[in-house]
């Protein structure tokens, strides 16, 4: 239940951010229906809002989505779906469904499978419902700056980043990335600094620990 409420609130934030960054209500809903992976969705609309190109926006969404492939590796032997059901399982392979499935590991494979589908489909419904609410709400408000939506978007990114800063090394990666973006913003095309920041993750992740 608390997962559902949290997902709902992030969904409202995404819907509002997407509309504030120039997407229509229909496009915003399609993001949640088709892409259905929160951080990637936020990144795609964030890059567009920062004035970035199509390639930068798609690249940022893709790179944030790669972790879902690693979740899929873990979930495929748990779900053991075939055909279309396998594609549906892939679509709902996200942070929450993988997390719930893994939390049921001690109760056996059937409980893991049930947890995966329950969380995946539940989040799908809530995420899409609240995306639409957020998009309609932001559309009704009008000028994003007048309502502080232009600050709410980076604040939402900060809120997504915060719980991931679990140790000193993670904080170093975040700080180096932030300084890097400030440094290259005047010299790279708009939106490119965001993609380029992944170089920081690759260099620092290459041989550490």
């Amino acid at each position, binding site marked *: 239940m608390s997962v559902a409420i*949290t997902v709902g609130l992030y969904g409202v934030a995404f819907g509002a951010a997407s509309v504030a960054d*120039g997407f*229509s209500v229909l496009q915003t809903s399609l*993001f949640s229906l*088709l*892409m259905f*992976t929160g*951080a990637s969705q936020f*990144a*795609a609309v*964030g890059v*567009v*809002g*920062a*004035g970035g190109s*199509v390639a930068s*926006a*798609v690249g940022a969404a*893709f790179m*944030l*989505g790669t*972790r*879902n*492939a690693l*979740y*899929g*590796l873990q979930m495929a032997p748990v*779900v053991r779906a075939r055909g279309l059901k*396998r594609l549906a399982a*892939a679509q709902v*392979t996200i942070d929450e469904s993988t997390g719930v499935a893994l939390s049921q590991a001690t109760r056996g494979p059937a409980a893991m499978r049930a947890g995966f589908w329950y969380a995946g489909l539940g989040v799908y419904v809530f995420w899409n419902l609240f995306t639409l609410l957020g998009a309609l709400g932001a559309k009704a408000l009008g000028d994003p*700056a*007048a*309502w*502080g*939506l232009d*600050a*709410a978007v*980076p*604040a*939402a*990114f*900060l*809120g997504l*980043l915060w719980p991931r800063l679990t140790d000193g090394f*993670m904080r170093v*990666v*975040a*700080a180096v990335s*932030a300084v890097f*973006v400030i440094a290259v*913003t*005047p010299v790279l*095309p708009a939106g490119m*600094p*965001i993609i380029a*920041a992944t170089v920081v*993750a690759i260099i620092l*992740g290459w041989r*550490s620990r």
Partner: protein
Amino acid sequence: MSGTGLWLVVGLASGACFAVKVLGHFVPASWLAHPRLQRINALIPISLLSALVVAQGVAVKTHLAIDHRLVGLGVAMAALLARLPFPVVVVAAAASSALVYHWH
């Protein structure tokens, strides 16, 4: 960005993210199991989210701009340090930023 550009972002980014999910379910586990790949993959969201905070908080296209948004971000950080829940963080940032925007 043009109307076509926005639709391209919706279509291509959604397609790319779905393809990545499908990949995870269909490739042999050994392909993506390299520890270095896993380590980098854990750091990429941190780099990207940090970059997005800066790009949307203190940049306008290709130049840096200190304005009402930075006030909102400061309030958001204070709220996170105070362990307030996500919606409070976002609403506090929006409210403080809008206040400064209208004051100006």
